[in-house]
């Protein structure tokens, strides 16, 4: 037998409790705080309240409450949050310039390292910016053709829906034809600059699309041709993108960027991660000593897990992978779950304290702390 839970008593109970909390906490909340702290706490509460209500309320409220869909603007709000969060990027840059700049200017200890850091920073910024601009330029060239295709689609749609526009459909068709001829010509010219190593599929694609677009434009170019023209322009835009990508990959900007990123940055990152292998083995030799029954058990478990996942287990026992699986699925998972439960509840409480701003107003208390535990 299943209980069908009514929502009214539940919501009422929660509303009463929240109301009681607010009423009892508000005087304490306002006491000892200045207007800035109250404003920050208020904004924090409202921001958290949105996500709390988004989770707590059902997807759509019942009709008697207005039938409102609370998450209607979730995408826009989320994008706003992401945008605000990304503004913090400048803080790191200022700190680097301040700390290392002052070391260089006052020639403190480590100034040479600071010169190396700042020059690497600026070098990478210059090359990355150049690379980004070049990539945008590549996209722009294709985007123009894509925009023209959208224009063609719009003409068709406006005429079908009897939408009045500033220019007549015939004038728009003339503009469309003019620009289409220019873009096709530009693309053909650009194609002629490509060398033999351009993939055949791109070359043939551009040639075919250009031929067909010219055929449509040169024949009796009427409104009914738009249905054929639009997808061809879209396809040409894609082919032009690939053509520009081909030139871009050969450019010195891209090569320099690749040299720095894939030649320097990627191997450095991999090397740092590879250090872990060395450190794990040296730490294992240094620290894994059997000094008690518990450490002996731990050692046996560690060795079994290691042997169970390497190819050479077959020389010892075929049961090792299964024992390893049991160790990972049962005792290890249980321990991990226990730690995660504790950390999750602690995190939940901390989050509630942050949301309701019932943390101390500063992390530094005004009176000195007492002793340790009793």
């Amino acid at each position, binding site marked *: 037998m299943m209980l069908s839970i009514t929502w009214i008593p539940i919501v009422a109970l929660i509303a009463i409790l929240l109301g009681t909390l607010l009423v009892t906490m508000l005087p304490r909340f306002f006491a000892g705080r200045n207007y800035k702290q109250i404003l920050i706490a208020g904004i924090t509460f409202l921001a958290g309240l949105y996500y709390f209500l988004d989770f707590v309320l059902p*997807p759509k409220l019942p009709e008697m409450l207005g039938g409102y869909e609370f*998450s209607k603007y*979730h*995408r826009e709000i*989320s*994008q706003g*949050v*992401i945008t605000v969060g*990304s503004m913090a990027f400048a803080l790191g840059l200022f700190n680097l310039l301040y700390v290392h700049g002052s070391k260089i200017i006052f020639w403190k200890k480590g100034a040479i390292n600071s010169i190396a850091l700042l020059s690497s920073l600026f070098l990478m910024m210059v090359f990355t910016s150049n690379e980004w601009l070049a990539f945008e330029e590549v*996209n722009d060239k*294709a*985007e123009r053709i*894509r925009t023209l295709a959208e224009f063609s689609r719009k003409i068709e749609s406006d005429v079908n829906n009897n939408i009045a526009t500033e220019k007549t459909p015939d004038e728009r068709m003339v503009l469309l034809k003019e620009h289409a001829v220019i873009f096709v010509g530009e693309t053909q010219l650009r194609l002629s600059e490509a060398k033999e190593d351009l993939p055949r599929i791109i070359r043939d694609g551009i040639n075919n699309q250009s031929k067909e677009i010219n055929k449509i434009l040169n024949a009796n170019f009427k409104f009914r041709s738009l249905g054929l023209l639009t997808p061809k322009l*879209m396809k040409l*835009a*894609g082919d032009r*993108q690939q053509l520009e*990508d081909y030139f871009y990959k050969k450019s010195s900007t891209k090569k320099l960027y690749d040299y720095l*990123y*894939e030649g320097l*940055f*990627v*191997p450095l*990152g*991999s090397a*740092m*991660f*590879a250090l872990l*292998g*060395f450190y*794990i*083995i*040296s730490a*294992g*030799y*240094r620290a*894994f*000593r*059997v000094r008690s029954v518990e450490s002996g058990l731990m*050692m046996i478990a560690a*060795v079994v897990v*290691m*042997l*169970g*996942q*390497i*190819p*050479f*287990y*077959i020389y010892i026992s075929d049961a090792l*992978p299964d024992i390893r*699986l049991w160790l*990972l*699925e049962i005792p*290890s*998972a249980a321990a*991990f*779950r226990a730690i*995660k439960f504790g950390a999750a509840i602690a995190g939940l409480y901390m989050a509630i304290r942050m949301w309701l701003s019932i943390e101390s107003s500063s992390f530094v208390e005004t009176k000195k702390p007492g002793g340790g535990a009793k």
Partner: protein
Amino acid sequence: MKSSFNLDRRIIYAFVVIALAWPLINKYTVRPARMKSAEKLFEVVESTKPTPGQFAFVAFDFGPSTAAENAGQARVVVEHLMRRRIPVVLFTQYLLADPFLKSIPEKIISNLETEMPGQKWIYGKDWVNLGYRPGAGILIQSISKSKNLAETFLVDAYSTPLKDLPLFRRPTQLKNISLLTQFTGLVGLFDSYVQFFQTADYRPNFGHGCTSITIPEAYIYLDSGQLQGLLEGIAGAAWYSKLLSDKYPVRKPDEAILINTGLGIAHLLLIGLIILGNISGIISRRNS
């Protein structure tokens, strides 16, 4: 207590270099250890049918530092998906993974088209690269709640409007994602997918590729059924690669098995050093 035989850590590092380099230089490979969690993921991909309107959502949330493990995993799974003609949508929330979103599928396609002349894998129809998108958990929630993914993401990594790509021509939602696979060395992002990549009435199959460090944590989710398959570091990728080679014998072998062999030798070295350290500890305790 001073040990009677204390190896300098530089000698240990030298041993490690030899243990790892020797199999790589000599291309020495050994059949990898059986990984049941990798088998589960293989079966999930095998049982996923290439249905019109459905695709696999693959997240490359790793950078160059963990590429040794995660890139190997990504390669074998994306290859398997492409062989089964399941459209693949690639995406990352980690900026440094952006170059892999292009290089890995292009290399796979080049190998497949060489292996199967006449067959093509077309961008926009068989695979789409959405590029890097910031936002972590908030973005994942947006994907779950989205009524049309083409409106959520708008353009792909090359600024092509998604609605112009064959895969996104019709409105797509979470229900169109038959399989989610995520490869990462970062735990925070993985937790967000587990938590938010679902709706009240639908959750796609979830396969995860993790680094060796996060294996115990991933097992929690495999055990609870929130993960349907798991690639445990490069060992998982190696076993998956072996399964692929068994199914497609003409397939060109990849690096996963080679790297896994080197890793196995390093493990044996570690066990040997631990035993040596304990023996020297016992001897020094007896002597004193």
